[in-house]
């Protein structure tokens, strides 16, 4: 496993110092089998973690909004509809990042951008006008109820997609 066969890794041989991430560096345990998964795929490397977290948020936001809309929609209609919208955007981002085709990547850029705008707009709105949000959304308080992951996630998504498009 720890054989120094790193020079066979395509990304390491084509751009030895360009990447700020150590993942592409020829470390002592660099995989001798990366040929099966091209490094420009959206779902390998950091993309693996990104998609996992996106899938979790897609599930969490959609399920939560579904329950809230089904059981107590009248209590906070704006918040619940925004949660449902956020859930749909997370599903779209998860699916397109996992797919990784050129078209899917363009849609992923749009969904990540919508998320970033959404979390900033709804975050500001929820602080400026708390009366509209008697119950929280995923994006309330810039995602403070979810450890600010909703704020960080689209930034990482966009950085990841940009890095791949530069490499391609």
């Amino acid at each position, binding site marked *: 496993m720890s054989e120094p066969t790193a020079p066979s890794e395509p990304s390491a041989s084509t751009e030895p110092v360009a990447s700020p991430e150590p993942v592409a560096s020829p470390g002592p345990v660099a995989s001798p089998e990366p040929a099966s998964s091209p490094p420009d795929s959206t779902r390998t*490397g950091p993309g693996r973690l990104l*998609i*996992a*977290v996106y*899938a*979790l948020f897609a599930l969490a936001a959609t*399920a939560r909004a579904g329950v809230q809309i089904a059981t107590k929609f009248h209590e906070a209609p704006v918040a619940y509809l925004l949660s449902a919208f956020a859930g749909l955007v997370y599903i779209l981002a998860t699916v397109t990042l996992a797919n990784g085709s050129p078209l899917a990547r363009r849609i992923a850029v749009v969904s990540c951008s919508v998320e970033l705008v959404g979390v900033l707009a709804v975050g500001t709105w929820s602080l400026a006008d708390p009366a509209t949000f008697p119950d929280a959304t995923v994006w309330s308080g810039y995602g403070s109820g979810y450890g600010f992951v909703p704020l960080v996630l689209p930034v990482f998504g966009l950085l990841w997609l940009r890095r791949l498009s530069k490499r391609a």
Partner: protein
Amino acid sequence: MNGVVPTTVIVAGLVLAGYAGVMSARDRRMDVPLLIAVGVVEVIVLVLVGLVVAKLVGGAHPAEQATLIGYLIAMPIVPVAAASWGLLERTRWGPAVIAAAGLVTAVLVVRLHQIWPVIHV
């Protein structure tokens, strides 16, 4: 329900996250010991789910029962899904997925307590 099992799940999730995080930081790939650690967390999660289900069957109900049941279904899926997704990755990002799953497991127990305070932490 005393707090032993929920607290154990939180600690196990955090330990798993720390162990997998160190593996990722040291550029290690998924290995058998890490899979065993995921399995141990999964078993403890299932014990907790069983205890909560027993409480529901016993007649007690939280205000947001649908949400609680959603959590009970989601919690055991998280480690299994993370392990299968992480195994597809032959780099340090496989353990990184496991680390995230460990953190999520711990957070889900805290949320479980918020939904139904009889689940002590």
